[in-house]
């Protein structure tokens, strides 16, 4: 009886601590999406630019972001200012470093998704818009982008789900998100339970994300 009671207390302690961590994970997730989705569009424009310097630079940028581990990128963003420029930054820079690292990494992936979507649009849509007198901005935002979003939604869903799991990489620079907490609890209690609970939380988080994205896809199903 008391033993079960003790277990329940221990479990609820774990859940409370992990929920705190989950809050941080959700924050990393939300801020990354909020900034990397629009930034990705800008980078996609750069990548498709007729200006060779701009398209070349964005190509290199995307290549580096996709070709090196996100964990390493987080290290560079966090420790770089000190090692490279001897800048001593406030410890709260840790959180900013995570945001910056995630945003610039995910923007590169989103840029490539946007680009594939934009380039898959039939040229007839641009020509029809041109003949009707739409400006370039109107053509893009009224006619092209809405159709691109429908086309790229499945790929975006993939990235977003990966992002939920990737937030655990913030562990590498000791940001107190859910995985960092789970790892700490697991060590101090010499127990698997915190890790399993964290796993369940990640799963539920992604289940909800998938549900929302599925709703969005269905909503755009009204046309072909």
């Amino acid at each position, binding site marked *: 009886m008391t033993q079960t009671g003790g277990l329940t207390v221990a479990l609820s302690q774990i859940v409370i601590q992990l929920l705190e961590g989950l809050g941080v994970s959700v924050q990393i997730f939300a801020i990354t999406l909020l900034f990397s989705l629009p930034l990705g569009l800008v980078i996609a424009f750069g990548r498709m630019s007729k200006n060779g310097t701009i398209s070349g630079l964005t190509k290199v940028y995307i290549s580096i972001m996709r070709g090196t581990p996100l964990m390493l990128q987080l290290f560079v963003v966090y420790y770089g200012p000190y090692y490279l420029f001897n800048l001593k930054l406030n410890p709260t820079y840790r959180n900013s470093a995570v945001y910056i690292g995630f945003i610039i990494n995910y923007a590169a992936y989103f840029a490539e998704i946007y680009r594939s979507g934009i380039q898959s649009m*039939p040229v*007839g849509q641009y020509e*029809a818009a*041109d*003949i*009707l007198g*739409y400006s370039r901005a109107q053509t893009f935002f*009224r006619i092209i982008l809405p159709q691109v979003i429908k086309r790229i939604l499945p790929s975006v869903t993939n990235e977003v789900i990966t992002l939920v799991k990737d937030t655990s990489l913030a562990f590498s620079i000791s940001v107190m998100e859910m995985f960092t907490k789970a790892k700490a609890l697991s060590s101090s209690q010499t127990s698997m339970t915190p890790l399993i609970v964290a796993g369940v939380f990640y799963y539920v988080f992604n289940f909800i994300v998938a549900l929302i994205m599925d709703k969005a896809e269905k909503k755009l199903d009204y*046309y*072909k």
Partner: protein
Amino acid sequence: MNLLEMKNVKKSFGDLQVLRDISIEVGDGEIVSIIGPSGSGKSTLLRCATLLETMDSGILKYEDTVIAKNNADGKSVYADKKTIKQVKSVYGLVFQQFNLFPHWNVLRNVSDAVINVQKKSKTEAEKTGKELLDKMGLLDKADYYPFQLSGGQQQRVAIARALALNPKVLFFDEPTSALDPELTGEVLKVIKSLKDLHIAMVIVTHEMAFARDISDKVIFMADGVIVEQGSADEVFSSENERMQLFLGRYKDIL
């Protein structure tokens, strides 16, 4: 004054010379058909007239607005952006592949440009849109999306979309080439019914009987030049060898 004037138009894609010195004139309300074998440059000519392609050399004029003229080296130089933007309201184009906007319903397809390009009120734009859809026999489809329509219906929506902007000249780039004979019939009937709107029409088509019946002027193009032009009777009865060869199998039907 001519509505459209193209003079000495030349256009190449790489080494391939598609248009070699073509000149055409279209008057107010005039209906001109351009016929000729595939690859003769008919569509390219239309695309030059509608500014989807730029000419290498030649003059392009709508009414008294010069859109392109030749420089000293004989290369086309185009007018500034503002002039080009203005001239876009003079003409419309109906595509072979319709190119409707799939994410908008039929009514929005025909009214959005009126609202967002011509800056007219939504009420007014939708009223005009509905009238045009009625004329096309598609009023009951106003809430449908393009994918729910047959090819012929989509093309009729595309015609309504072009007419909604009130152009002075409407270009048709093989408007029935993507349609089966039955749907072709309904689209041609609609185009014929536009005659009473008294807007000029320039129609690139492979429908010989249609071209003969509707046109004030027929232009026969082959290999990037105009081989014959004149009234339908003149062109279709031409003794020109190239024309005879092209018409070959149509002759009995005509």
